[in-house]
Structure formats: structure tokens, C-alpha cells
């Protein structure tokens, strides 16, 4: 039966045509009757970066339509904000986009400081920038590893990027006490001054190791023929379409639209620093990759520059002073006194703000991350609304994947650098 059927097919030439041995494929495609198939991708799919669900309409291998279904990671961040004081909520905002906790805190604190009209010490502003830029490097490094993994580079490439990411995470852990949920940027400044020798350590690592590592990543990825075939001319993003969808960040800049809040509308002390914003014109997956690689270098240079310009210079050795103060025959303080001082510190729970309204935005690794805060003069925010960049970036996915094979869906989605907790909040 089957033999007969095959022989029949070969006789008709359809078999050969479908194997694309015969050149006129147009005729073959017309002669095949295909059904549209709806398949479900996610939310447990490993390359959906958490819990995104895509409903794909396929014609053979080609994606005809796609609908993202979000909300599987919804934690009610805005509701939580309305039911906590400003200071209590401060500890939660790092979870909005857990790969860029510093940017989240920065946007939230900037909104409060705008309403309450608080001036921040210059040194604290510089420290904030150092932390934000280090955070940008962390986020891009994680993205780079996962992106290669999604493209099928299963040979352990992520371990290189995760190695360097851990180094920076340990730097930030040293100053904030937490590995990823920093809660370091506070109302009116930062949690604590930098410890002694920290800046020198960071500078040494970036100068001696980090730039070399970025070259290594590029040596592995950028000229790899398989990588180029998977990324070049895949998922073209038109800049005008991107703007109407509200896409920001490296995704937009890779399409040739130069919009970076650090230059466009400088917050903090970005206007006192010199840096380039990498802007490419390709608009495809490869350009988005290249844009982030350039941003790794620029951010590292910016960290070095900010450390050099840090007002007040290197911090004094607090530990050494403490030993001097508390030891010897006639100490200024006893060790117990210091402990009591720290324990009995009266930290007020409430911070009254407003009434007023403000929108503060920062350039997070994924784009424009903003907070719309409406304060009514109490210690609890009246309304907090997050403008999370990933929410807009994932909404354009259906436009990008149409007409591409299923395998490219993963590459395109991964190149948008979407973080699902940021989408769902």
C-alpha cells in the first residue's frame, strides 16, 4: 500500500519537488494543501525566559500569527505599593525587574525625590551611576549567555558570561549586602558609602579582565557562520513601528532610532559624563546583539570614568578607625556602645510625601523604565504605576515573527531581551 503510494508520488514528480530537488518550488507549494495549525508554546518552555505563553498559528514551519499570553508571573506589584509605606515598598521594587534591581530602585526613588523635592549629595549621585552601569553589564551578560543558548550553542558558552556576572554580583553584594535584591539606592542618597578599596578593585578588574573577556565573546560569536545565519536579516524591526509600539532600549537603538534617556533627558548626573550611545541601523537580530555588545564596553568605560570623577575620592577606612576608637587603654568608644548605637537606631517607618504627582524614568538595560507616582500626602503612595520596558517590547513580538520559521521565533524573542517579571509585575 505504502509502496504503491510512494511510487505514485515519485511518478508524479511531487516527491522530488517536495524534497526541493526540482527547482520550481512555487508550483509544489501551490499543489500541496496545507492546514493552519495552532500550537501552544510555553509557559513551561525553557527558552521563553520564565513563563511566557505564545499561541502560534503555523502553516507548515512558517508562523502565520502569534499571540503572547502574559500574566503568569503577576505578583501585584502596584497593589503591594498602595498598601505599604514608601520605605517598606522600597525593599520590594528590586523584584520588578530582578536583573536590573538598581534601575528599579533608581526610578522609584527619583519619583519620590521629585515630589518631595529632595536634593541628593553629589557623591551619592555618582555612586548611583556606578551601580546602575554595573547592573547594566550584569543584565547584558546574562542575556548574552541565554541568547546563545537559545540559538543552540550548547557548548557551555553561558558559563563564560556567568563567570563574569558573578564577579560583578559579588562587587555589588559587598556594598549592598545582597546578591541581586540590592535595596541600595535609598531616598536621599544610598544605603552606605563605598567600602575602602572597592573602587580600586572594580577598576582593576575592568581594566585587566573585562575588556579582554568581551573580545573573547565576540571571537566566539560575532564571526561564527552558524550564528550569522541564525541572526542576520531575521526579525527586522522598523523604527517607526517600534516607536508606535513603545519599544525602547537597545531594541530601538539597533533599528537606528537614537533614543537613550541618559542623553535624551539626562537624569542624575549623566549630563556631566562623556559617553557614546551605540546606535546601529540594521534592525535585525544581529544588530540587537551587536548593540548590546557595544553597550557592555561603553558601560564599562562609563564605570571607569565615574570612579575617576567620584567626588570625595576614595573612602576612608572606617574599619580601621573603629579599631582605633575602640581599642587601647583609653578608647573613645567601647565596642558594646557601637553595637548598641546600631541596634537602638530609631528608623522611622513612615515617610510622608506629597501631595503631588510625578513621572520619573531611567534608562534600564531593557529600555525606558518609569514610575508614575501619585502621592496624597500620607506615608502610603496613592497610586504607583510601573512603565516596564519589557511590557512594550514583548507586545511587538507578533509583528516580528510573522513569516519566519518556528525556530526563529525563539531567536527573535530572545534577542528582544524580555524579562517576564518585568512584563507581569
Amino acid at each position, binding site marked *: 500500500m505504502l509502496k504503491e503510494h510512494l511510487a505514485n508520488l515519485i511518478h508524479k514528480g511531487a516527491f522530488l519537488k517536495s524534497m526541493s530537488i526540482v527547482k520550481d518550488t512555487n508550483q509544489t507549494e501551490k499543489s500541496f494543501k496545507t492546514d493552519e495549525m495552532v500550537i501552544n508554546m510555553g509557559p513551561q518552555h525553557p527558552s521563553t525566559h520564565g513563563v511566557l505563553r505564545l499561541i502560534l498559528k503555523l502553516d507548515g514551519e512558517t508562523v502565520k500569527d502569534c499571540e503572547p499570553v502574559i*500574566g503568569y508571573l503577576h505578583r501585584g506589584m502596584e*497593589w503591594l505599593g498602595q*498598601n505599604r509605606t514608601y520605605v517598606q515598598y522600597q525593599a520590594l521594587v528590586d523584584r520588578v525587574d530582578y536583573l536590573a534591581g538598581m534601575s528599579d530602585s533608581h526610578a522609584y526613588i527619583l519619583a519620590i525625590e521629585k515630589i518631595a523635592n529632595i536634593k541628593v549629595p553629589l557623591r551619592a549621585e555618582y555612586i548611583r551611576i556606578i551601580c546602575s552601569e554595573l547592573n547594566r553589564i550584569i543584565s547584558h551578560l546574562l542575556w548574552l549567555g541565554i541568547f546563545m543558548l537559545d540559538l543552540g550553542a550548547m557548548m557551555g558558552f553561558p558559563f563564560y558570561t556567568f563567570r563574569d556576572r558573578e564577579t560583578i554580583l559579588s562587587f555589588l553584594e559587598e556594598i549592598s549586602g545582597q546578591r541581586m535584591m540590592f535595596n541600595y539606592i535609598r531616598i536621599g*542618597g544610598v544605603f552606605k558609602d563605598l567600602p575602602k578599596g572597592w573602587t580600586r578593585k572594580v577598576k582593576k578588574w575592568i581594566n585587566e579582565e573585562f575588556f579582554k573577556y568581551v573580545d573573547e565573546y565576540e571571537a566566539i560569536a560575532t564571526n561564527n557562520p552558524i550564528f550569522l545565519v541564525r541572526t542576520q536579516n531575521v526579525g527586522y524591526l522598523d523604527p517607526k513601528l517600534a*516607536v*508606535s509600539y513603545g519599544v525602547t532600549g537597545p531594541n530601538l537603538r539597533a533599528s537606528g532610532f537614537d533614543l537613550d534617556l541618559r542623553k535624551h533627558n539626562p537624569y542624575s548626573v549623566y549630563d556631566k559624563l562623556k559617553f557614546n550611545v551605540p546606535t546601529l541601523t540594521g534592525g535585525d537580530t544581529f544588530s540587537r546583539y551587536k548593540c548590546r555588545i557595544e553597550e557592555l564596553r561603553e558601560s564599562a568605560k562609563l564605570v571607569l570614568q565615574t570612579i575617576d570623577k567620584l567626588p570625595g575620592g576614595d573612602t576612608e577606612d572606617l574599619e580601621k578607625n573603629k579599631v582605633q576608637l575602640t581599642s587601647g587603654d583609653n578608647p573613645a568608644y567601647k565596642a558594646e556602645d557601637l553595637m548598641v548605637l546600631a541596634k537602638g537606631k530609631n528608623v522611622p517607618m513612615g515617610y510622608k510625601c506629597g501631595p503631588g504627582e510625578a513621572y520619573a524614568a531611567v534608562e534600564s538595560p531593557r529600555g525606558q523604565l518609569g514610575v508614575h507616582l501619585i502621592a496624597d500626602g500620607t506615608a502610603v503612595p496613592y497610586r504607583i504605576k510601573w512603565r516596564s520596558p519589557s511590557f512594550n517590547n514583548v*507586545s511587538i513580538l507578533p509583528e516580528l515573527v510573522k513569516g519566519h520559521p518556528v525556530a526563529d521565533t525563539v531567536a527573535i524573542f530572545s534577542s528582544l531581551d524580555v524579562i517576564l517579571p518585568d512584563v507581569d509585575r
Partner: protein
Amino acid sequence: MSTEQTPPPPPQAAPPPAPPLAGEFGKFLKNKGINSTPLGNDAGSIEMLELETKDLVNACKLLKGSSEIDFNFLVLMTSVETKKCFQSIYTLHSTKNKKSLRIKVNVPKDNAKVPSVSLIWITANWYEREAYDMMGIVYTDHPNLKRILNPENWEGYPLRKDYIPPVDSLNGPHPLTETEYAERTLSKPNS
């Protein structure tokens, strides 16, 4: 540096503030025949306007279509519940002029309907779905108005002030007790 500061107490006999004057974009809309109520500037010196529901779509078309104003970016849409009504708030931005505008539309609570602007800025498509999901504002002429973050069979609109969250047996006490506690311990003004 101090982590907490308290703002100075407001003066006792402050004169009533003068009503804010129409800003740049308020005047622009008035020239085109659309009336708006100026609300002054916010803390980040962004001009704020209040529009009537019927004027919203026309005003948005004018603001986006005009070549000298050119609000090509809908940055954010917020939905708020005030004492009297719901509000749908649009923050617009022009990348050419580096200017922003905030438009507020008051929506009555018993008939919460606003015309959709998702045909003007595609960004509004998902933001309006979110506002519908969280606040229960219905956007007419929206192509695909359904819940976005909550499950489709969810009951109630979570960000309304009278919303009572369902009992969560896994994560300890009822979340409402926390709200009640906050309300009891923190003083709220009467207004």
C-alpha cells in the same frame, strides 16, 4: 547622608492657590476648538490637562498629527480611582521636541466607558487591556478588550479601592488585615 527626611509642615494660613493657567498644549487645543481644563504642572514640570471624554480621540489625533508638536510616543497609561470617579491618564512624549504632556480623562463610576486610542498609538492596546483588567474601565472600539494580567475568569477589579482580595490560605493571614492595619496606623487626610 540621611535616608529619611520629613518635609516642612505646611503654613497654617496659606492663601487659596490661583487656578492654573492654560499651558502651551492647552492653548494649541483651544485654537483647534477643543476645550480643556488646565491642571498646572506636575513635580517634573510636565503640563497636565483634563479633557472631556468625547474630545479625547480628536485631541489625541491633533496632538499626534501636528508636525510641530508631534507626540509620537505614548509613554504610559495609568488608571486611578479617586473619590468621585475613575481617571484614565495618558502620558505623551515627543522625541523631536523633548516635551511631555499628561492628559487626564474623568470617567463616572457607574458608567466607566472611554473611547480607545489604540488606533492612534498601538502601545495603548495593551495598556488599555491592563486598565480594563485592573480598574474595570471599558474602552469602546478597542479591538481586543479582555483581561491581560489576571486569569480570564478572575472576579473583580484588583486596583479598585473597594476590592477585597480572595483569602490566601497558603501565604498566611488575610491580606486585608494588612490594609486595615495600615489605615489604622497611618493618618489619612479628610480630602
